[in-house]
């Protein structure tokens, strides 16, 4: 019997290589798990038939374009859309023999922190189904946590991989901007969007990253990795310098249980031999969020202009062309994309561009420089990933600003294009707490090394308590 709740991708690959199980058996085991638990959790928007082959199964956030498999980005405006080409990341997965289990739920166009903005209904947290799995990639995180997939891909603009990984108790990497191709991904904010892995262990996360990373001629913003991905093996962190930015660890709204779990993990890092020191990111934390909410909506308003009912997706019935555009967008988009299209269009309008978008881009430089200065002293920065554990469904839907604060601690490093790894570091109120490690550009190997050492030392059990047999 294959226990999908416990099986890591690494172990599954070993069993496949040793021919102890077949690819078809493995795929069937996950389909069974989906059949058993996804009725309650609603992680998947589309489940695939087994198409044969012998590789590992994988789940994909539904913003990742898949040839012949519906791709909706959680939006009614893309209902029924079936891409005619694969995104580059999917081509790379297929080249490694990986097989797509299905497409996972997301806030509409990845805009949100709970999956409650999905046009197809929210996903539920496997630790407590009355709570959200985080977002926007809540479907991928919940699927991995509940044993419905050994690993998954998400996408992250301001925290959409790291935050749901934190809330579901698994490992998520937002890679250095430019290391993973965006070709074939439904665009939200192009200067921030990055695809990245969600997994149950740091080693699985690193291995999946090694498959998808690297330059792609179809995405001119990508670069080759300066050094190959190293799977972390040692629990050695001696001599590594870890900074604790005051503002990211003491921000208003961080729950005491979250702060305590992260503090204990940082103490553990020190025990393991890391040099831990306090530091400060005052401008990044104060201005990161307001600037993000200019840049991301501005770029979204431009990217979402393509949904006009002409080439694909929903089209409203209307006798006249302009009316058709208006009706299509009125019917197809939900409230959050409409809100951001309006804010973003205003921020980009003639006479306001310099004052809003242009100014926010300058602040972005300040945020980047503030981080760069810290990396002269530190190899990585540590903080909570999310200020809170998973919150109840409906708790923040009435107040968009309260929802936006979910990403307070993940946004600054996203603005600077830096890699961030979230690993589970304990429980608060019986729910997982995520710890965020941020490094300089291309420092994924350092993050994997620290994350792996901490993972081994903490011995966190990623299987939700209520699902343990």
């Amino acid at each position: 019997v294959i226990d999908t709740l416990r099986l890591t991708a690494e172990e599954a690959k070993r069993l496949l290589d040793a021919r102890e199980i077949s690819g078809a058996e493995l795929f069937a085991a996950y389909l069974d798990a989906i059949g058993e638990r996804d009725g309650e959790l609603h992680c998947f928007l589309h489940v695939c038939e087994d198409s044969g082959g012998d590789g590992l199964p994988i789940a994909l956030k539904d913003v990742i374009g898949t040839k012949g498999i519906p791709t909706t980005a959680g939006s009614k405006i893309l209902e029924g859309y079936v891409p005619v080409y694969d995104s580059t990341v999917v081509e790379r997965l297929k080249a490694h023999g990986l097989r797509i289990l299905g497409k996972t739920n997301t806030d509409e166009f990845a805009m949100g922190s709970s999956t409650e903005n999905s046009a197809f209904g929210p996903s539920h947290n496997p630790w407590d189904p009355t709570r959200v799995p985080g977002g926007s990639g809540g479907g991928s995180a919940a699927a991995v946590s509940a044993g419905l997939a050994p690993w998954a891909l998400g996408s992250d603009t301001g925290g959409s991989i790291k935050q749901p990984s934190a809330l579901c108790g698994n490992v998520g990497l937002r890679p250095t901007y430019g290391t993973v191709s965006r070709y074939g991904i439904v665009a939200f904010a192009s200067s921030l969007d990055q695809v990245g892995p969600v997994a149950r262990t740091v080693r699985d996360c690193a291995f999946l990253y090694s498959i998808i990373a690297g330059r792609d001629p179809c995405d001119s913003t990508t670069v080759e990795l300066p050094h190959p991905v190293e799977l972390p093996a040692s629990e050695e962190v001696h001599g590594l310098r870890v900074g604790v930015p005051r503002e990211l660890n003491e921000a208003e709204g961080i729950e005491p249980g979250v702060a305590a779990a992260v503090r204990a993990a940082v103490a553990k890092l020190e025990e393991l031999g890391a040099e831990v020191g306090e530091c400060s990111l005052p401008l990044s934390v104060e201005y990161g969020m307001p600037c993000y909410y200019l840049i991301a909506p501005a770029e979204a308003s431009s990217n979402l202009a393509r949904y006009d009912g002409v080439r694909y997706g929903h089209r409203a019935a209307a006798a006249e062309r302009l009316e058709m555009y208006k009706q299509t967008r009125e019917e197809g988009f939900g409230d959050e994309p409409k809100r951001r299209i309006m804010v973003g269009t205003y921020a980009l309008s003639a006479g306001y561009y310099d004052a809003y978008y242009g100014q926010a881009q300058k602040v972005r430089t300040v945020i980047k420089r503030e981080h760069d200065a810290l990396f002269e002293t530190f190899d990585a920065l540590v903080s909570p990933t999310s200020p809170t554990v998973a919150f109840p469904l409906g708790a923040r839907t009435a107040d968009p600003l309260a929802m936006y604060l979910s990403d307070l601690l993940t946004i600054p490093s996203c603005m600077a294009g830096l890699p961030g790894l979230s690993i589970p570091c304990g429980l608060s109120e019986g729910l997982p707490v995520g710890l965020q490690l941020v490094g300089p550009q291309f420092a994924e190997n350092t993050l994997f090394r620290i994350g792996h050492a901490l993972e081994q030392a903490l011995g966190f059990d990623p299987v939700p308590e209520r699902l343990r047999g």
Partner: protein
Amino acid sequence: VPPTSHPLEVVNVWEDDEPQPCLPVEEALANAPERDGDFFKVPPGGAG
């Protein structure tokens, strides 16, 4: 302070100008809500 439009300092990304196969017309039109031969079809513009 200069603006940051892109987090990596990537400039002048060139590719060789070699023709590649492109999407066949049938596939490009596969998701069209309405088509007319090899074209996407839209309702007529208004009088204004």
